[in-house]
C-alpha cells in the first residue's frame, strides 16, 4: 500500500471529471439522448398511426363489405322484380294475343259466313238467271214453229180439260 501525493490525483480527478461531464453533456449525451428520445417518440407515433390506420382500414373494409352486401341484395331484389315483371308481361302478352287471336278468328269466321252467304245468294241469282235463260232458250226452241206451239197449247189444254 502506497498512497502518494493524494492532492494531485484528487485535483486532477475532479478537474477531469468536471471537464468530461461538461463536454460530454454538451457534445454527446444531449444530442444522443435527444435524438434517441425523438426517435422513440417518432417510432411510438408511427406505431400508433399504423394501429389507427389498421383500425380505419378494418372499418373501411367492414363498410365496403356492408355496401357490397347491400348492393348485392339490391341487385337480387331488382333481378327478382325484373323476373316477376317479365313473367307478368309475358302472361299479359299471351292473354292479349289470345284475345286478339280469338277476336280475329271470330271476325274471320263472321267474314267467311258473310262471304259464304253473299256467294250463295249470288250463286242462287245466277242459277236463277241461268235457269231462266235455259228456260227461255228451251221455250224459244220449243215454240220455234207452229206445230210445236200447237202441240204445247194442246198439251196444256189437255191438262186444263182434265181439271
Amino acid at each position, binding site marked *: *500500500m502506497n498512497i502518494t*501525493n493524494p492532492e*494531485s*490525483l484528487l485535483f486532477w*480527478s475532479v478537474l477531469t471529471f468536471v471537464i468530461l461531464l461538461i463536454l*460530454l453533456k454538451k457534445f454527446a449525451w444531449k444530442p*444522443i439522448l435527444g435524438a434517441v428520445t*425523438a426517435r422513440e417518440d417518432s417510432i411510438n407515433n408511427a406505431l400508433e398511426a399504423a394501429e389507427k390506420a389498421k383500425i380505419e382500414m378494418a372499418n373501411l373494409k367492414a363498410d365496403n363489405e356492408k355496401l357490397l352486401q347491400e348492393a348485392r341484395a339490391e341487385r337480387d331484389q331488382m333481378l327478382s322484380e325484373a323476373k316477376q315483371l317479365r313473367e307478368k308481361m309475358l302472361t299479359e302478352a299471351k292473354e292479349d294475343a289470345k284475345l286478339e287471336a280469338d277476336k280475329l278468328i271470330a271476325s274471320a269466321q263472321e267474314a267467311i259466313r258473310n262471304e259464304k252467304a253473299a256467294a250463295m245468294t249470288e250463286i242462287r241469282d245466277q242459277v236463277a238467271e241461268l235457269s231462266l235463260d235455259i228456260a227461255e232458250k228451251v221455250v224459244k226452241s220449243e215454240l220455234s214453229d207452229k206445230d210445236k206451239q200447237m202441240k204445247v197449247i194442246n198439251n196444256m189444254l189437255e191438262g186444263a180439260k182434265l181439271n
Partner: protein
Amino acid sequence: MKNQANFRLLLTLVFGLMAMIGIAQNDKQEKEGFNPIELIDSHVWDSHEFHITDWKGSPVTLHLPIILWTDNGLTVFSSSKFDHDNSGKVVVEANGNKFVRYDENIFYADKFDQADFDATSVLAKPFKYEYRPLDFSITKTVFSMLLSLVLLLIIFMSAARPYKKNDKAPRGLAGFMEPLILFVRDDIAVPQLGSHASRFMPYLLTVFFFIWINNIIGIIPFFPFGGNLTGNIIFTFTMAIIVYLLTTFNGNKHYWSHILNPPVPLPLKPLLALIEIIGTLTKPFALMVRLFANMTAGHIIILSLSSLIFIFGSVAIAPVSILFVLFMTVLKLLVAALQAYIFTLLAALFIGQAVATSEE
C-alpha cells in the same frame, strides 16, 4: 444494511491485504534477486514516471512532469531529474528549493532530513505537509486519466455526430454505443430515479463510461495503457465524494426528515439520527472501497501469477501461469464492466433515495 456488511468484509480484506504487503515489504531486503513485491507495487501504485519497458538493462521510461506548489510558488520540472531515485538520496534544485523523493512522495530536502516518520506506516508519508510541498504532478494515474479523457471525448463526440444529421437507426460507433447508453438509462437510471432520471443522466453516463474505460485501461498491459486509476483509493474517494455531494445537495425534505427526525419513539430519535448520519457516509465509503479493492485485487492477482514464473525460476511453470493470467484477465474484463455498472447503479440508488418523495 447489506451494504454495510459488504463494506465491513471489504474493509477487512483491504486491510488484510495492506498488512500482507507491509509484512512482505519488511522481508524484501532479506532476499536477493527477483522481488515480486517490488514489481507488483510498481505496477499497482502511482509513480511520477511511466515505466514502459527495460531495454538492454536500462529502463525505458516516459518522464512525466512534476508540478509542485511550493513556498516559492509554482514549480515545474521533469521527473527525469530524480533519476529513478525513490530513497531520498538525489537532491533536485528547482525554483530556489531543493527536493528529494522518498517512496514517490516529494519532500523539501532540508526538512526531509529532520523528518521523523514511521517508515512502515502507509499513511505517514503522504500527509506530512509540513515536510513537503503540494504535489499536483501528472503522475502515471493522472496520465492514464487524461488519456481516458481524450479517448472518451473522441469516442462519444464521434458517436454523437451522426445524430445531428439523421434520425434513422444508428450505425457504426453510434450503433455500438447507443445500446450501452440506453442500458444506463433504462436499467440503471430509470428504475432507481424514476421521474428524476433525466436530470441525472449526464452524471450517471459520465461516471459509468469514465470508470469503465479506466478499468479497461488498467487491464491493457502495455504503454500508454496500464495505469491503475480505478484501483487507486484517492480516485475512488473522489468519485465517492461526488456521489456524497450529489445525495446531500439533492436530498429533499422527505430524505432529510427521515434522517434527522426518524419515525421512532422520542428517546431513540437522537441515537437513530446519529446512525442515519453515519449511514449517509458509509454508503459512499462502501462505493470507494468496493471499486478500489476490486480493481487492485485483480491487478495483484494477475501480477502475482505472472511473478510465479520468476519466483520458480523455471519456464516450465509458464504455461500454467499464462493460463491462469489469461483466465484472470478475461475475468477482469467482466469485472471492469461489472464494477462500473455497480458503481453507477449504487450512485443512482443513493441519489434516488435522496430525491424520492414519500409516494415513490
